[in-house]
């Protein structure tokens, strides 16, 4: 079992009260931070750790924090992104369900580092039970003096407010989230200005993912160097990989950054379900380019996955076997993006709808061969031209599926049927 940084004490049980959490060394890191460290020292330690955002983009966390102005007349906000809506991703809920105080301690340390005394925890509306867990945990933390006024006698104050969303993938995008938090529809904002300068209510705002903030606790406990050494250069630490699809043991596994994808699938997730052959893997949630079975020796860190043309993304590893129709898989993903486009940008609104409709016809064998290349060029033209990256997220899979599995798409067009056996029937 490799060394852990997040789920260290919760392999066999959950830590649902402050007391239980403290018995495993919980809140020692916060004590150290508030009584012995200056905010800048916390930021330096996190920089040293090589921690990169676990929400999907992989932006270096310490650097993001250093963009928040030190002296601001306006209040500064910490916003926790627990929207977790990227298809294939279900890791933040594992932290919430198993060790909610790890998240709350991470929030307190991080808020102190950026100089914020107010935090909003934005959780997707469907996670009702998870929101209730957090509600209780927040109350418990207040009762024990780990939130509220003058935490641990340090003079530092922090309030955490739970805020439930109401169903919209785009509210996971950080500026869509901020709009939603302001009581509006989740239309992403043009950047710049970035949230670090002008975020919630026009004030400096730091938006971080649940897993990112939880990781900060072990960085303070054991040092940035320790955390960095768990992973690969510039990709510190461990990562929660949610392995789903055609494997024997689907589940969320905490593993070191840089672990080979092959090892995740065969050593941890038990290998292929029913011993069928591997065809493809989505390495980081539905938005990223797909990998073929030949590409699974890639090291699972941000830079190595990017080097072979995909992205580590959200950590959602979706494993696909030989019985799967790739046209159908892509069509389902295209339907998702058409549904979730917020409609602000013409290339995204029109493009996602057009892709969905055309792929539907390809699937039904009602399209011409030339339309496959049209799909590729539409997808290409959607990229890099919009307010937020959802258009790219919709386009990237389209291009990679058609490039890597073109014969399946052509078969549908030419024979009006599938050359793959139907996906597993129940």
């Amino acid at each position, binding site marked *: 079992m490799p060394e852990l940084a997040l789920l260290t004490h919760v392999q066999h049980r959950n830590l649902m009260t402050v007391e239980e959490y403290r018995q495993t060394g919980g809140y020692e890191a916060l004590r150290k931070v508030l009584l012995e460290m200056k905010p800048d020292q916390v930021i330096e330690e996190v920089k040293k750790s090589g921690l990169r955002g676990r929400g999907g983009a992989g932006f270096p966390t310490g650097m993001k924090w250093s963009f928040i102005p030190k002296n601001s007349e306006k209040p500064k906000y910490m916003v926790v992104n627990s929207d977790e809506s990227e*298809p294939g991703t279900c890791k933040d809920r594992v932290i919430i369900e198993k060790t909610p105080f790890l998240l709350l301690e991470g929030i307190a340390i991080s808020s102190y580092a950026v100089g914020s005394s107010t935090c909003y925890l934005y959780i997707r*509306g469907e996670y009702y039970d998870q929101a209730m867990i957090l509600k209780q945990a927040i109350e418990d933390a207040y009762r024990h003096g780990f939130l509220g006024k003058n935490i641990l006698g340090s003079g530092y104050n922090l309030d955490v407010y739970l*805020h439930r969303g109401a169903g919209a993938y785009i509210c996971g995008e950080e500026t869509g989230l901020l709009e939603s938090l302001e009581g509006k529809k989740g239309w992403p904002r043009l950047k710049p200005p970035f949230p670090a300068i002008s975020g919630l209510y026009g004030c400096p705002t730091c938006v971080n993912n649940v897993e990112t903030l939880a990781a900060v606790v072990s960085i303070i406990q054991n040092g940035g160097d320790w955390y960095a050494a768990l992973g690969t250069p510039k990709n510190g630490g461990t990562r929660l990989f949610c392995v*789903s699809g055609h494997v024997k043991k689907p589940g*969320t596994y905490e593993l070191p950054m840089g672990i080979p994808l092959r090892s995740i699938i065969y050593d941890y997730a038990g290998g292929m379900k029913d011993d069928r052959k591997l065809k493809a893997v989505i390495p980081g949630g539905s938005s990223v380019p797909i990998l073929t079975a030949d590409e699974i020796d890639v090291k699972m860190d941000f830079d190595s996955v990017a080097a072979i043309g995909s992205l580590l993304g959200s950590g959602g590893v*979706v494993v696909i076997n030989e019985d799967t129709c790739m046209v159908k*898989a892509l069509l389902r993903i295209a339907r998702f993006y058409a549904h979730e486009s917020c409609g602000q940008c013409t290339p995204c609104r029109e493009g996602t709808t057009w892709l969905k409709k055309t792929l539907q016809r390809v699937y039904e064998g009602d399209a011409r061969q030339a339309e496959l290349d049209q799909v590729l060029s539409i997808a290409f033209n959607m990229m890099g031209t919009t307010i937020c990256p959802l258009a790219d997220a919709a386009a990237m899979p389209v291009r990679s599926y058609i490039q890597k599995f073109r014969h399946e798409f052509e078969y549908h067009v030419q024979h009006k049927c599938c050359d793959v056996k139907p996906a597993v029937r*129940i």
Partner: protein
Amino acid sequence: MISDRLLAEFDSIVRNYPVRRSALIPILLTTQEHLGYLSDESIAAIARYLNLPAIDVYEVVTFYSMLRRHPVGKHHIQVCTNISCLLLGGEEIFERVSKRLGIKEGETTSDGQFSLAEVECLGACCNAPAMQVNYTYYNDLTAEKVDQILQALQKPEER
């Protein structure tokens, strides 16, 4: 009608924010949880409560997939058919529920007990195929499991 109890909840939600409008979506959710859906009357009352034009509230209600303008069944069944669920039979689960209850996507049974929706990823991908009935998750579904769940929901008094 927005009851006094509900109004008291609105008051406590509003206190969480320096800007009143931020309370809008939590207030809409809370209202829906109490009253089942968001009627024109509720929307008007919430708009008045937050000093917002009603049109702004309608715009928000129509944007978010969980907010609804019409009642649904007592048991609102939401089946995920997104990628991880699709691979393990999410569409077949949807069809099974649909056939068993005799309703299609967006419909409610005539007795008002069940309604059915096909939804996007529920964040339960490692336990696919998955569905939610109201806020309760049901994981690792099979046809037999679906039948059992529906049966149990149909006859709560016999359990």
